[in-house]
């Protein structure tokens, strides 16, 4: 079959999927295309006049890619998998649906990164971080790091890699690479006191000695150095200095780049979003953006869906914050508490494949700071009972815990516990977030994710 005909078949399938109410058709066209012609992805990407850029990380890839789109989207037509479909099929679907695109901008699942990179042959890559996430699905962290190393070594020699060298595993990938732009944070005032419980990648990648941290920012990300062999964080090409965190409202920092330094503000809360902003700035730089464009884009950006999304439900608000692994959850908890500990919270735990079937990770999350001001928590999702146990054994009085497995019922219960004019904090895993947005969309409160993506 010719590529043009294959594309027509695949696109029609996407429209049918939407019409049939089976979701947004964000992966089906790509799946069909990949089945008809496995080489099609490379051929489609090869048509892009400005090439492709890939963003991969355990945490923050959707937000980082969305910020880059905000920075570049005004002057470059993008093929961007904005709705978060980030496997080979999702990338192919984005290419199919945005056929006049000039540049491909794709967030890519950390497990799928080597495969997508091989097919797409990107001209730029942004590697954000590797945290322990869904061991049942990806296997161990070292294994993913090893695959990333191999994939990075196979990139075209003129391709740029923007790398978060605050992560020792990512730093190891760009060591010795000519076209590498190293980014990270540089403000010990906002560092944590030490590594969190059960931090990942605590040991030197070369000699196995525990790394020492001049500043630990998020999980094992920070200004690290191995006391054993002397390996240390490489010098930063792009860095955030003088970071000011403003609770749940946002953050401001000095963005230092090879083009100069500029104060930027983002409407995203928490240190983890400063990482996303610096990652996006770094990728935009290697894609040719200037500092003025970058700071304007960062200023305009509003959160990617479900990651930090405010939904108005009558006279009450809902704040959705996606939580999917210990490192991300700890930052979300820290950020929420910095804005004043909430009185009521809804926490949703599903155990589908996209959430991770193994729910043991919730025991590595430091929920405790959240429990201090809490009067009532509604736990929901397919594994609501596990969450209830996590909080009970974390010291919360069991009478403050309500187990409401059905998501819609739990959302309504949370809203009924919220005073008029107040805001309900909801912390869902991935599929629970999609389902909750679906419920809100059904009530006409938000648009479906594929519509928001248009």
């Amino acid at each position, binding site marked *: 079959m010719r590529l043009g005909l294959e594309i027509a078949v695949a696109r029609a399938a996407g429209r049918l999927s939407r019409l049939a109410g089976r979701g947004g058709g964000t992966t089906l066209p790509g799946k069909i295309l990949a089945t008809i012609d496995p080489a099609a992805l490379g051929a489609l990407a090869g048509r892009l006049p400005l090439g492709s850029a890939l963003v991969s990380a355990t945490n923050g890839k959707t937000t980082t890619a969305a910020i880059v789109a905000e920075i570049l989207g005004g002057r470059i037509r993008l093929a961007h998998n904005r709705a978060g479909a980030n496997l080979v099929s999702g990338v192919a679907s984005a290419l199919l649906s945005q056929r006049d695109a000039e540049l491909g901008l794709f967030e890519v699942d950390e497990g799928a990164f080597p495969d997508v990179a091989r097919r797409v042959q990107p001209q730029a890559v942004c590697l954000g971080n590797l945290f322990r996430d869904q061991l049942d699905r990806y296997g*161990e962290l070292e294994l993913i790091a090893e695959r990333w190393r191999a994939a990075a070594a196979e990139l075209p020699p003129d391709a740029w890699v923007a790398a978060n060298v605050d992560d020792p595993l990512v730093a190891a990938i760009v060591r010795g690479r000519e076209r590498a732009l190293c980014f990270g944070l540089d403000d010990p005032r906002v560092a944590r006191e030490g590594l969190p*419980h059960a931090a990942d990648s605590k040991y030197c990648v070369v000699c196995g000695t525990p790394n020492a941290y001049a500043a630990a920012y998020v999980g094992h990300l920070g200004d690290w150095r191995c006391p054993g062999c002397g390996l240390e964080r490489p010098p930063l090409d792009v860095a955030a200095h003088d970071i000011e965190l403003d609770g749940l409202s946002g953050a401001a920092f000095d963005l230092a780049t090879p083009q100069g330094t500029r104060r930027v503000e983002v409407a995203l809360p928490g240190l983890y979003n400063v990482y996303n902003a610096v990652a996006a700035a770094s990728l935009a730089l290697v894609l040719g953006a200037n500092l003025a464009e970058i700071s304007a884009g960062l200023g305009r950006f509003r959160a990617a869906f479900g990651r930090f999304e405010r939904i108005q439900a009558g006279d009450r608000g809902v704040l959705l914050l996606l939580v999917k692994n210990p490192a991300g959850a700890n930052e979300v908890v820290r950020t929420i508490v910095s804005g004043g500990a909430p009185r009521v919270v809804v926490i949703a735990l599903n155990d589908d494949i996209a959430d991770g079937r193994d729910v*043991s990770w919730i*025991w590595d999350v430091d929920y405790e700071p959240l429990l201090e001001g809490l009067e009532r928590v509604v736990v929901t999702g397919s594994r609501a009972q596990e969450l209830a146990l996590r909080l009970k054994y974390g010291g919360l009085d069991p009478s403050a815990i309500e187990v409401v497995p059905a998501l819609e019922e739990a959302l309504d219960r949370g809203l009924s516990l919220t005073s008029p004019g107040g805001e309900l904090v909801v912390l869902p895993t991935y599929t629970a977030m999609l389902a909750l947005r679906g419920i809100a969309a059904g009530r006409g409160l938000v648009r479906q994710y594929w519509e928001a993506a248009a």
Partner: protein
Amino acid sequence: MKKLEVVVGHLYPDYLNIYADRGNMAVLERRAAWRGIGFDYRGIGMDDPLVPGEHDLLYIGGGQDREQALVAADLAEKGEALREAVAGGAAVLAVCGGYQLLGRFYRDRSGTDLPGVGLLPLHTVAGERRMIGDVLLECELAPGSPRPLAGFENHAGRTILDEGAQPLGRVVAGFGNDGQSGYEGCRAGRVVGTYLHGPLLPRNAWFADWVLAQALARRLGEPPELEPLPDALEDSAQQVSAARARARGGRYS
């Protein structure tokens, strides 16, 4: 009268903690406290000595391959002290990687045997595909009263028990020790090893109490009858987990 307490030694908490082993510790601590029993937690790190007679319970969790390799040599050095502690009445709970390390040896992909502690009559052979999924066991630690144990497993090693060795339970759903024998875990007196994490103890309250009672047995001569606690939440979590195992446990991925 002096307050009853239990001293728990957690081996390598910085290295072997991948499946939320602190959840197991939190459960033991709270369930002891709710009954007025003191809980003295002591981490035992890489270069810390293991003093036989100091602990009522020794706990060892699982890690990624890299972490497990880092502690294996140290644990081999502590082997004699560990065996002496057990001979003196200490209970041991080993989960996942820790379970493998308590066997006689671990044969890696290249066919090399890494020596284990030899506390449990078993050995483990590295396999090609990982066995990942929800698991449900039926355990009969007290003859005539079978109890369910629900968890999650994720291991490439196939653990083979010696002839006559006692497994922890019969596999109702999931892979278990090697995906073939129909059994999971191993028990030798007060020493128990298992692949079940999730973590193991929160949703299996009866088993948490069994472990606690085994630990107290070192002081009391025999495992005490612990007063029951309100476990409705624990039991409903176990039921959900058991249903998961029945619906989707034990398939190669």
